[in-house]
Structures are given as C-alpha cells and as structure tokens.
C-alpha cells in the first residue's frame, strides 16, 4: 500500500516539473501532505498513540492545510504573477527529474545493506535532489520556499522509514516543519514579504563581492 503512495509521491514530482503555475505548485504541496498523512497512518501504526496522533495532526494540519493556504494567501496578497518562470523549458526539467529518479533507483540498487524498503530511500532522495534542482532552476523566491517544502517532505518520508525504531526522528522532522512555518511567518509577516516576495531572486542579489 505504502509503495503505491510513494509511487504517487514520485509522480507528483514529475508533475511539479511540468507544471508552470504557482497555484499548481501549492496544490501539489497539499497533495503531498495528504500522501504523507497516508504513509504515516499506515506505517507508524504501532508507535505509541500520543506520538502518532501528534504526527498525523502535524501532517494534515501543517503540511496539507496550513502551509498551502498560507502560501496561497501570500500569492494572492502580493498578486505575484501566476507563471512560475523557470529558467529552463519544462520538457528539459522533466527529463532531468526523470534522470534523477532513475539515478536514485540505480544507486539504491547499488547499495545492498538495507533493512528498510528501498522505495523509501528512492522517493526521499529523488525528492531531495528534485527539490534542489527546482530551487536552482526557478526564479521566484516563493518557488524557493515551495521547493524547500518539497525537500522537507522527502526528508519526512525518509524519517518514516526509521519511524518504528526511532520515533524521535519523525518528531525531529515535525520540528523541522515547525521551523519552516516559523520562518515563513517571520519572513513574510515582516518586510521581506513586501520587499521581495513578488520579485525574482536576481533582484535580491546585490550582496556580492
């Protein structure tokens, strides 16, 4: 079951690669949140109930609802143009993402000492690298935030893999989420939102030597 969800998760990455509207990105984030919720529900069933509830709530509330809504609110508020404006055409990024995913598959096969299903590893790693790739290839700050959240989701998945032995890790993942939300609040409530949210990073690169 989880495998299917993870596959879905990977597919969302592909979709992200070809999507070119911010709103779509936000929707993808929400979808990933739900997927994560599903995984958590299935995987972590045997850890103690309080922790489980905490995690489930976190996945649903923060990942699936709070962050997307908040991003949506920002986009609306600063009327950021709907286009994602990637540096590269979508076809290229699609190819690259595919390559990344395949590469992660290969790497995971190269590794033999697993006691966790490789699919976790694959999806997490591909999420990480895709996220980094998206950061590099997109122009808007808001997209950077979104991509960072994607990376996080990947990490979250990875932490699920170890979830049963070490629930602690999952909690850390949760903590990371909280940090991110705090950052988002902190930044976009504060001036950066006004100064820099709707412009692309190239204009936020005056500090250089």
């Amino acid at each position, binding site marked *: 079951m989880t495998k299917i969800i993870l596959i879905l998760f990977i597919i969302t990455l592909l979709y992200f690669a070809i999507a070119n509207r911010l709103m779509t990105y936000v929707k993808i984030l929400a979808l990933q949140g739900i997927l994560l919720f599903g995984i958590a529900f299935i995987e972590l069933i045997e850890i103690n109930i309080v922790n489980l509830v905490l995690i489930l709530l976190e996945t649903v509330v923060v990942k699936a609802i709070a962050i997307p809504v908040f991003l949506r609110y920002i986009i609306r508020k600063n009327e950021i143009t709907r286009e994602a404006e990637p540096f590269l055409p979508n076809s290229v990024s699609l190819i690259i993402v595919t390559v990344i995913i395949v590469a992660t598959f290969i790497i995971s096969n190269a590794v033999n000492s697993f006691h966790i299903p490789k699919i976790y590893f694959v999806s997490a790693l591909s999420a990480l690298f895709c996220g980094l790739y998206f*950061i590099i290839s997109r122009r808007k700050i808001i997209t950077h935030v979104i991509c960072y959240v994607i990376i996080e989701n990947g990490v979250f998945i990875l932490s699920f893999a170890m979830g049963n032995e070490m629930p602690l890790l999952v909690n850390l993942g949760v903590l990371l989420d909280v940090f991110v939300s705090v950052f988002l609040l902190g930044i976009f409530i504060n001036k950066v939102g006004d100064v820099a949210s709707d412009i692309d990073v190239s204009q936020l690169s005056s500090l*250089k*030597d």
Partner: protein
Amino acid sequence: MIVAAIFVIIILFVITVPFLKAYHKGNAAIAAVAAIAIISSYYAVIALFGYDTAFIFPGSVVTGEIKILIDPLAAWFMLIINFTFITSVVYGSGYIRSYHEDRANITLHWISFLLAHASLLALCIVRNSVVFLVLWEVMAMSTFLLVIFEGRKSQVIKAGINYLIQSHVAVLLLTIAFLWIASGVKSYSFDDFRDFSAALKPGSQYILMLLFFAGFGFKAGFIPFHSWLPHTHPAAPSHVSGMMSGVLIKIGIYGILRMLLELTFDVKTIGYTILIISILTGLYGVMLAIIQHNLKRLLAYHSIENIGIIGIGIGIGCLGTGMGNSVMASLGFAGALLHTLNHSLFKSLLFYSAGNINRQFHSMNIEKFGGLIKYFPHTAILFLIASLAICGLPPFNGFVSEFMIYMGLFNGTSMAPFPNTLVFILAVIGLALIGGLAILCFTKAFGIIFLGTPRSEYASININEKHWTSMAPMYLVFMVIMAIGLFPQVFMKWLQLPLQQFTDITQVYAPATGLTIINQIGFYSLIFIAIAALVFALRTLVVRKSKITKDSTWGCGYVGNADKMQYTASSYIRNYRKLAEPLLQVRKNKMEVKGIFPDEAWHHTHPLDRIEEALIKKPLKIFQHFLFRFSFLQNGRLQFYVLYGLVFMGLFVLLPLLLSFINRIFTN
C-alpha cells in the same frame, strides 16, 4: 640578569613615554637605548674576553626550555648593534623633532625603536628556535612600524607592507627549516641541530643549509632576495634607514654565520654557493646603485653591494675551513666580520648625512642638488669621508676589511684545484670591479650633490646641521671609522675569539693566520696621511706668498651663466649606462630637440630592478590574474549557493562510483 633588566627598561619606557612632551620623548628614548646598550655591552665585552654568559629559562610548554648564550660571535654583533643604535637614537631624536605635533605617532615610533633594539640584541643570544622566530617577527614588526613613521604618504605604507611581506616570507622559510629539524629532534634547542643535520643525507644537509641561507638572505639582502631594500630605505626616516642598513640586515649575516656554526654540512659546496651568490650580489648591487637618482635608493643598493662583499668573505672562510687552510679561513671570516662592523659605520654615517639634506629639502633627488658643500660643510666632509671608506680606499676602515678579503682570495687561488680557481679569480675580478664602480658611484653622488653650483633654486635655506643631535653621532662614527682605518690591530684583538669559533687558530697574530699584516696596514695608512699632509703643507707654504685671484670657472669662451650647463648625475654616468644597458633595465622616455630654435626638450630615465621585475612583480601579476578568475563564486545568487553544496556532495558521491566503474572496465 641582563634579560630582566632589559625587560624592566622597556616596560618603564612604554609606561612613561606616552605622557611625556614630544621633545622629551626623544631624550627618554636616548636614555633607554643607552641603558640597554650599556647593560648588554658589558656582557658582550666580557664575552669577547672569553667569559661567556649562559643561563637557561624554564620556558613554557610551547617553547621548551630557553637557553641564552652570549658567545663571542653574538657579542661582536651585539656591540655593533649597540653602537649603531646609540648613534641612531641620538640622531633620530633631533630628526624627529620637526614632527612634534603628532605626539601619538612619535610615541609609537620610539616604543618600536626600543623594541627593535631589544629584539635584535635578543636574537643574537637566544638559542631556541621558537623563541628565535618570535623575536625575529617582533623585530620585523617593530622595524615595519619604524619605516611607516611618515605613513601619511600612501607610498610609504606600500613600501612598508612590501618590507613586511618579504620579511614574513623569510620567516616562513626559517619556520620550515626549523620545523624540519624540530620534527627530527624533540626539542627546539639549537644544541640538537648538529646531531640532526649530521644524521641527514648530504643532499638534505645542503637543502637545509640553503633554506637557512635563503631565510636569512632575505634579511641580509642577497640577490634575489634584495628587492625590499631599495623600496624601504627611501620610505623610512633617515636614522631608521641608517639603523636598518647598519644592523638590521646584519642580523641576516649573523644568522648565516650562526647556522654555519650549528649545522654540519659539506663546507666546500656551501662555500662555493655562498661565494658565487655573493659575487653576483655585490656586482648587481653596485651596478644598479650607479644609475639611481634617489640618494637613499642609491645607498640602499650599496648596502646590497656590501652584503655581497661580506658574503665573499664568508664564502672564502668556509672554503678555507673546507680545504683545511686556516690562513684563508681566518682571513675570510675576519674580513667578513670586520666588514660587517665597517659597513654599519660608514653606511649609517652616509644615511645621517643624507638625512641632514633631506630634512632641509624634503627631497632625495640628486639632480636637484649641487654646491651644497657651501651650506653643509660638516655634512659634506663627513659624507666624503664615508664615501672614501665605502669605496674601500686607504686610509679608511673599508680598506682594511677588503684588504683581508683580497688576501684570502689570492691565498685561495693558489690552493684550489683547477676549475674552482676560476671562481676565485672571478671573485677577484668582481671585487676589483666593485671597488671601481663604487668609486664611479660615489664620485657621482658626492660631486653632484655637494660640489659645483646648485641645479635648482633652493628655497630659503636655514641650516640646522650644526645641532648637536646630528653632529655628535656623526663625528662619533667618523672617529671610529678613522680608528679602525689606522689602528685595526685593536679591533683584530677583539675579533680573536669570534674567529676561533670558526677556525682552529688559537692566536690571531700567529704567523699562520696571515693576519699579521693587518697591524702594518694601519701604519702604512698613517704614512699615506703624513705624506699628503706634508705635500699640502708645502703647497700652503708656497701659495701663501703669492696672492690667489678668484674668478669664475673657465667656460670655454661662454660668458653667460653656465650653471644649467653643468654635468648632471645622469650625464655623468651616461657612458657607463650605455656600457651596461644590456644587463640593466632602464625605462627611458624623452622628447628630442628639433628645429633650428628648439624649445624645451627633456629626457627621463627610470632605472628598474630586473630581478625584481622578473621574480616578484611578474609572478605576482600572473597569480592575481589567476585569483581573479575565481571571483565569480560569491555572486549573490542564491541558486548558485545551493548549487555549490550539491556539486560538492556530488563530487564525493559520484567520483568514487565513476572510478570504481572505470576500474571494473579496465580489470576485465
């Protein structure tokens, strides 16, 4: 306890001097330097008479125990240092006076002056490599601060930094050398050097010695490590330049001599290496000195030349020891040591005289001057004496040391086997040429500056040369110069113990040493003076009867004002320049005379230092270009910043995979 006392003096000085008036700061400095000099000189003198002082500090975890040893060699250098510092501080106290409004700066200046003195003394006596390095850099920093006394000019700062960096490179070389030894033996004490180097292979011994030679050579100013001198001396105040080229560069010589004592190596190879480098140094120094227009630069290049002469002495000494010829060895080392003293004397005297002029005109450009002997009679005569001495002409001190070196050379010529004798004869040629070129150079310097008629309108001249702070030290130095020139045997007696450290001779005046002539030299110089006096007396006797009419110089029929038609410095050395053009590098730009009624024409020559251009300027330029290539890194783009991380990780993940993949291909 010498160290404690010196510490106390410095502390007291540092505490008190900031609160004194600018005028009194100088006197305080004089007092402090004198105190240090007296204390240390006492130990030095007794060391020269065979009572070495040695004690051991517990030291710290870093240094290990610190051994202090005042042996004759150290003592000899300590005395030189003390003397020059005393004259320099007295002269400086007058020289600085015109800057009295900038009190803070003067305070810094005197404090660093004192530090320089103390650290130089300490360098002579400390026998622990870590402490040695520390002191070395203290000396470098303090002298750097001395150099940038007039730091308001940015080119002074530039010159200072240049000096700082080059001396730092020297430190690095020494550091490597010391570390190499320290990695072998477990302590930092000099005493273990011998055993360590004895254990090395001959090649390594040679490299080790070369490392030390390079490190100390930077300070001493052997080519190609000399390029800081011509920049630093013009930048520094005159008393500092006098002190620097008097004793600071000598500490490099001291280091080399000390390492010759401490390390074991093939003496002959090192001897030939030093000899050849020194010949080149001497020639190069004097050849560039001639074409300089800035008096202090000229003097700086002469320091290089004299270092060359000292080096020749050291080389001969090493070879003498190598060939087991104690005559040659003693002549060589004695010549080197004595010339060290001599150079410190006449060079500081020259710089002080230059200072007197600089204080007046705030310019060191020779072409501007002329006829100064009428305004600065004392300075002129002293400058003349110093020039004669630096040219190594009898009856002055320079001649004595050069004479010994000549003797050593001729001695070696008959000793060495065939191909090597060429080195010696080369040295003879070199020394003779150096002497001749020095004469050319200083006839130019003295003649153009002090004689003839002014080549530019002087602003109102209020001569201050007769102030005791400038006269007293200069005449003091002059007296010592004469003393060495006429009674060298006295100083030779003091050289006896230092010489014994290098050679196996027990008694300097044993006929075996070949130093017996030195007694007579003074006597012959006396005769020379006597004859001159006699002739001059005769002349005055005769001339007094007939009255002398004064008239203007014969102008070959031209009756107008011929001042502008005088020979300038550059025209004086034009023939030489033409001759040496292929070797030197002189940037010329001129406007030719044209038309029947030509209007103004000019011709500038800027002498460049070829070695500096080739070995320092150009490589630096290339390296900086190389660095600028990489200045895209911090480009302000967030994406790139993330990318770097990705690349870095990818490098270490994929590279091994790739390599293993390639391996797999090649294995089957």
